[in-house]
């Protein structure tokens, strides 16, 4: 338990450490101390290990690995496929959120619950299921290949499909609460002012949802870049064609090439941090947008 809450200084000056507002509730020192200690041990220490390993590489070695054609191809595939999947997920995620929030139809609750499936289903399970579905002789794969001439399973396109699976709930679950909060009166005002439905949706509702949509997109994208389990089963993992960056890290590790693994991981981490930063900025922006602060 922390020090007594009320400690007016005898000389009448404000008390020293002003880094936190004092509170009457106890346990600040204990809970924050434990939080920071645990965080340092479990997260910061291992990440520091990665940083040290990366730093000991030296620039030349680092760039040599980063610009290795196979590594570049893998990074391009990871980021490109994640981007494509996030775009598709944004379109359909907004649509699904809209349908779930605005319409009432039988089975809506089931559908709503099903959206979280990728959160709960282990990626390896999703991976083998998707691989079976989209394999050239699988139920979806056969149709896609014979009717449309598109090969999804065991190709780069398979990567996109797997990332669509894992990323979809991020968009829906980010957009849904914001859509629920939107005041229907603003739509009614728009209608009374003579705006048609399309105009109301595009000029009134979508702009209000925009920050949330962007956030959902970024989250879906970030998840897709790092995804491993669901992808390796559906892609055939050929270098330069359908080999993702996380898989390449695993391969380098299997070859005991720690330097290579470290360099790829560092590049991915730096990009992931930038993404995280952007997400936080977007969230602050969206809160301001809706006057929550």
């Amino acid at each position, binding site marked *: 338990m922390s020090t*007594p*809450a*009320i*400690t*007016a*200084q005898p000389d*009448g*000056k*404000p*008390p020293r450490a002003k880094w936190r507002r*004092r509170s*009457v509730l106890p346990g600040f020192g204990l809970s924050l101390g434990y939080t920071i200690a645990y965080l340092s041990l479990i997260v910061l220490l291992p990440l520091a290990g990665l940083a040290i390993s990366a730093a000991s590489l030296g620039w030349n070695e680092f760039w040599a690995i980063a610009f290795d054609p196979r590594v570049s191809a893998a990074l391009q595939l990871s980021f490109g496929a994640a981007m494509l999947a996030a775009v598709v997920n944004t379109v359909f995620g907004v649509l699904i959120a809209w349908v779930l929030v605005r319409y009432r139809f039988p089975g809506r609750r089931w559908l709503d619950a099903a959206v979280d499936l990728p959160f709960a289903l282990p990626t390896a399970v999703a991976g083998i299921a998707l691989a079976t579905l989209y394999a050239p002789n699988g139920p979806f794969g056969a149709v896609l290949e014979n009717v449309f001439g598109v090969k999804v399973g065991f190709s780069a396109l398979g990567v996109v499909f797997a990332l669509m699976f894992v990323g979809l709930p991020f968009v829906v679950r980010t957009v849904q609460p914001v859509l629920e909060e939107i005041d229907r009166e603003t739509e009614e005002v728009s209608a009374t002012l003579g705006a048609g439905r399309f105009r109301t949706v595009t000029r009134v509702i979508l702009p209000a949802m925009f920050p949330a949509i962007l956030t959902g997109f970024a989250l879906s994208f970030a998840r897709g870049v790092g995804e491993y389990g669901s992808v390796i089963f559906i892609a055939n993992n050929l270098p330069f064609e359908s080999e993702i960056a996380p898989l390449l890290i695993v391969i380098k590790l299997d070859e005991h090439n720690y330097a290579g693994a470290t360099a790829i991981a560092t590049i991915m981490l730096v990009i992931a941090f930038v993404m995280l930063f952007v997400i936080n900025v977007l969230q602050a922006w969206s809160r301001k947008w809706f006057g929550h602060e």
Partner: protein
Amino acid sequence: MQVRVANVSKNYAGMAALSDVSLTVGSGELVALLGPSGSGKTTLLRTIAGLESPDSGVVYFDDRDASESRIQDRGVGFVFQHYALFRHMRVMDNIAFGLRARRKSKPKDGDIKKRVMELLDLVQLSGLEKRFPSQLSGGQRQRVALARALAIEPRVLLLDEPFGALDARVRKDLRRWLREIHERTGHTTLFVTHDQEEALELADRVVVMNRGQIEQSATPDEIYDTPATPFVFSFIGESSVIPVTIGNGRATLDERVIDLEIGRLPDGPAQLFLRPEDVAMVTDGGPGIPGLVVSTRRIGGMRRVTMECGLARHRIEFDASAELAIQNSQRVQVRIVGGRVYGAGQEGYATEKLAASATADFKWARAEGWLDR
């Protein structure tokens, strides 16, 4: 128990929520902290409770520095604005919470139950002890919150906007009832409100706050009749303000003398504050301050008239008989029969209560363009 706040200051993020506030509340007194939002009244209440700690200054309970005891041992009964009932506990468990939390001399279960029933009877909620807070109306929740605070036999009872979230009728009932409870239990009580009517009706003493400072601390009558500062005058009741200049013991508006008995006010700019009842319309053709009627509205048996006077078109509100047909743009004359003048004093404000009637000539006003439109 007496509560004494001595030179308390408190800042939030560089903003002064309380600046050098001192206040003494006598034992058994019922005091209202009144002020607009952001005036620091809730901060002061929470500081007395020990929920906030002052940056400087001390809160004394009976000459003992209250900060020497932990909040748990302070013995304050605090009623939160939104009640802060424990929503997962039944009414009886809410009320019994403080008794069960006692370390020393924890009462027996039977005694706790008895005490809870007494309190439920006191707050007129007998029979609802098994309900959860969500099954109660706003007024009932408020009374549970009060019973919970009273259960620990507090040395001082503090209520934050106790009736703020209730509708007008329930509010009136609870007000009367809180007064009764106070008379029966005799706790030193402070409550925060932004409703002047509530403060004036309920409290023995009203403390008007503004911008983290106490403007006036006085009985309801004094607050209304002799407001210490222009802020108090304009915050309580209805008022019109006219800037005047004082020189040679006389007040002038636009360099025209308004014949007022100014008394000992120093020379210089001053403000003339008028309540509607301080202004009378001249109907007998006698002298008065001339003006143009800009609006009228009916208030009960009277007609509230707004007129403009002076070059800067200052607005004065007054009541006239509802039988008089007064129209917009009509020329009228008024006589000042009361009100206060606030001039700049050595410290704060010097104030004089007016008793004299004002006279002015309708004709000069016309010549100076007062009434030109």
